[in-house]
């Protein structure tokens, strides 16, 4: 893809580098940083409160806090489509009190701020889940020792708890950054011109595939940069420690003292889930006559079809790859693992562009038409989501099956028999969880589907996008709600499984 994009000639490219490239870069960086900031704020604070306090309803909040995962960023943007209008009176006041430049500045800041806020309100669970697990695995001895050594609870949090959880939090932030880079719907709606926005504008608006590809390559470099930074930060944390033997003791709070944890947990739940969800419900009620017109059940069955085929095939592929790498201990397979995991960090738009190039090449060489087929769409999905299934399945094999496979080998069992009789039953739950993770991601996916969907093939995600793009945001709540419901069930199941394992 890199080779293709550099060798192709494009008259628009000079124009893009001269004019909008800097804007795209700056907007992308600003949005990623802003989103990281707010996800940290929401994710870490709620994780800390849930991990360390027993307040009324803490068990409910433990899973309520995960629910925003069911809402993709573009749906969050539509649910808050008019959030900028709320600030109109304030802007007018700024203009009359300070001046017009101040209003423009405030308005620009508001756009970034609110876009970042809206994105983080549904992305923070990545940070929340990883931070919570990390806090709980620390046990309470570190905190108790630090306090008995004369440090206040707050100082202990900053000096001990947070540094120890840094690797986990950084991993969460990286996921958030990837999602932000990948997003198309929300940035389009709020008019923040990021790279993904630029790719769509250049390709569809200017009809210039080559320049779009080059933008995709730059976006890929951004992504690799973030992965590199993550690796560096994690390498700096030179410490290692086993999960504590002591459990993480929760402090019981009630009465007035429970207000603080309640507020900290309610804010993300209310803004990340309750408000979007109930707004959509009421909009869907308003526009219920529309249900037939957009044939939402057809959309839902399309989405279901894609999500199921993709999750089943990624899981099967992961089992095959994971088992053979563990069983035969092959180096080549190890490398393919690294490569596969890159797929998930690659923004959907970039993968879609890559798939188009590949297809163009294939059709030139072998004269077969793949573009615009479901096959191509599935292929791209699998490239994107393989890592989601592969990583848990591989570590499942590693944790549970290594010794058993050796035993099975010495007992003269064939590889297939070992896999079927021994490994699969052992990691059955892991496989189900991996499949569900892919299912959730595939159901929510937008940019890749937008580019590669075959003619006349709509998913819930593309229908949501198209409707809101035609300023029919109220009506778009119908497919949106279907997406939310479809992802909600697996998410609740997955979250309860995390609880059981502890």
């Amino acid at each position: 893809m890199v080779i293709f994009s550099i060798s192709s000639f494009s008259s628009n490219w000079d124009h893009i580098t001269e004019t909008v490239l800097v804007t795209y870069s700056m907007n992308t960086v600003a949005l990623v940083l802003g989103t990281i900031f707010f996800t940290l704020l929401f994710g870490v604070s709620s994780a800390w409160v849930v991990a360390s306090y027993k307040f009324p309803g803490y068990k409910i909040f433990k899973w309520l806090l995960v629910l925003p995962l069911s809402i993709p960023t573009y749906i969050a943007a539509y649910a808050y489509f008019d959030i900028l209008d709320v600030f109109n009176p304030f802007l007018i006041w700024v203009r009359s009190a300070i001046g017009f430049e101040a209003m423009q500045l405030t308005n620009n800041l508001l756009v970034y701020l609110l876009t970042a806020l809206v994105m983080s309100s549904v992305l923070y669970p990545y940070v929340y889940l990883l931070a919570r697990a990390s806090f709980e695995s620390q046990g309470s001895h570190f905190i108790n020792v630090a306090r008995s050594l004369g440090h206040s609870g707050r100082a202990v949090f900053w000096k001990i708890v947070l540094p120890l959880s840094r690797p986990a939090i950084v991993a969460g932030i990286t996921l958030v950054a990837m999602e932000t880079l990948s997003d198309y719907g929300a940035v389009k709606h709020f008019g923040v011109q990021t790279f993904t926005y630029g790719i769509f504008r250049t390709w569809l608006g200017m009809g210039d595939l080559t320049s779009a590809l080059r933008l995709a390559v730059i976006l890929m470099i951004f992504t690799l940069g973030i992965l590199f930074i993550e690796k560096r930060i994690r390498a700096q944390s030179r410490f290692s420690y086993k999960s504590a033997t002591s459990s993480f003791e929760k402090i019981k709070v009630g009465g007035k003292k429970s207000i603080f944890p309640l507020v900290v947990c309610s804010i993300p739940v209310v803004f990340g889930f309750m408000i979007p969800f109930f707004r959509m419900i009421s909009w869907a009620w308003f526009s219920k006559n529309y249900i037939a017109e957009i044939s939402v059940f057809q959309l839902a069955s399309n989405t279901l079809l894609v999500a199921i085929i993709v999750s089943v095939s990624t899981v099967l592929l992961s089992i095959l790859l994971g088992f053979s790498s563990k069983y035969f201990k092959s180096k080549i397979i190890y490398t393919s693992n690294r490569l596969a995991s890159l797929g998930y960090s690659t923004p959907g738009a970039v993968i879609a562009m890559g798939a188009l190039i590949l297809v163009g090449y294939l059709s030139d060489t072998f004269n077969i038409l793949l573009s615009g087929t479901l096959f191509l769409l599935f292929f791209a999905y699998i490239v994107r989501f393989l890592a989601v299934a592969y990583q848990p399945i591989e570590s499942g094999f590693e944790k549970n099956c290594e010794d058993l496979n050796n035993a099975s080998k010495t007992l003269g069992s064939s590889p297939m028999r070992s896999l079927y009789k021994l490994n699969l039953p052992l990691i059955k739950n892991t496989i189900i969880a991996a499949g569900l993770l892919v299912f959730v991601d595939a159901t929510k996916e937008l940019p890749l589907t937008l580019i590669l969907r075959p003619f006349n093939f709509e998913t819930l995600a593309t229908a949501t996008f198209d409707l809101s793009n035609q300023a029919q945001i109220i009506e778009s709540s119908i497919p949106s709600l279907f997406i939310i419901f479809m992802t909600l069930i697996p998410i609740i199941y997955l979250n309860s499984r995390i609880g059981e394992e502890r």
Partner: protein
Amino acid sequence: MNSILSVSNLSKTYNNIYALNSLSFECNKGEIVSVVGSSGSGKSTLLKLIAGLEIPDNGKIVLKDKPINDESIFVKPEKRDCDIVFQDFSLFPNMTVDENIYFGKNAPNNKSMVGNLVSLANISDTLSRYPHQISGGQQQRVALVRALANNPSLLLMDEPLSHLDSALKEKVRSELLSILKKLDMTVLIVTHDAEDALTISDKTIVLNQGRLEQVDTPRNIYKYPKSEYVARLFGKTNILPLKLMPGSKHSFKQKSSDNKMVSVRPHQLIIESGTNSSLPKIKGQITNIFNNGHSYNVEAKCEDLVFMAEIKNGSDLKIGETVTFSIELD
């Protein structure tokens, strides 16, 4: 007497079950006091209450003449003049040994004292390393130095030796004792291991289901337990009826039968060559013999009483033989 810690009527319940029930005791300056009990006896709760990590339901704790807990006062853990060492040492993995030692609020003000501690504990080579890079024994000493560097009036230790393997344990135990004694430190050690209590402490408190069972020197507790629970906690023993040995200095009522009983350790049962000593006797048929290298552990039965004797010259003994054992009282 110079009291450092005074606990009176301390109670704590979890879900309406007493973890501690009206506990009272004192620790004096320079004393090493061990708290012994089986799991669930409330010993860890006691430590947390003194450190301020839990709030008691009732009772009073006074540390160096300053009440830190009573009906109206709760001093936060960071304001209490005591430090805690946990069994897993809880060295902060993100800090070097040096940073760990100087983490305590008071440590940076006592550089020369901390320097002495470091050389006393023989950990000067490890200062620039991270906790996971040093040995278990070193980690133990670093944790100790970290707590002592904060210059507390009272040191709390939670199972300080249970994390170490048995070979290391004895060495560390003697090092620990010598450091603490040199500093004249007042220490409260919680342990489930009677051997630790016997070898380290000046005074031992035995807890049973949240209640104080016995307080005495460890030697006396070993020899004169006040109950079957205490007797069994401090090593292998035979609970024999008092009527067999009326001269015994101690006895206790058995809970089930109300009979007065005496704890007789296996080594107190001997086989005499002569027959005319004045020691109390018990006849038993041998059911099992184990050679443990330096002596023979002999299991014998006398009617429905099963007991165990540790016999030095037991090579002639045979299973099924009936032998007369003499009981050596102090």
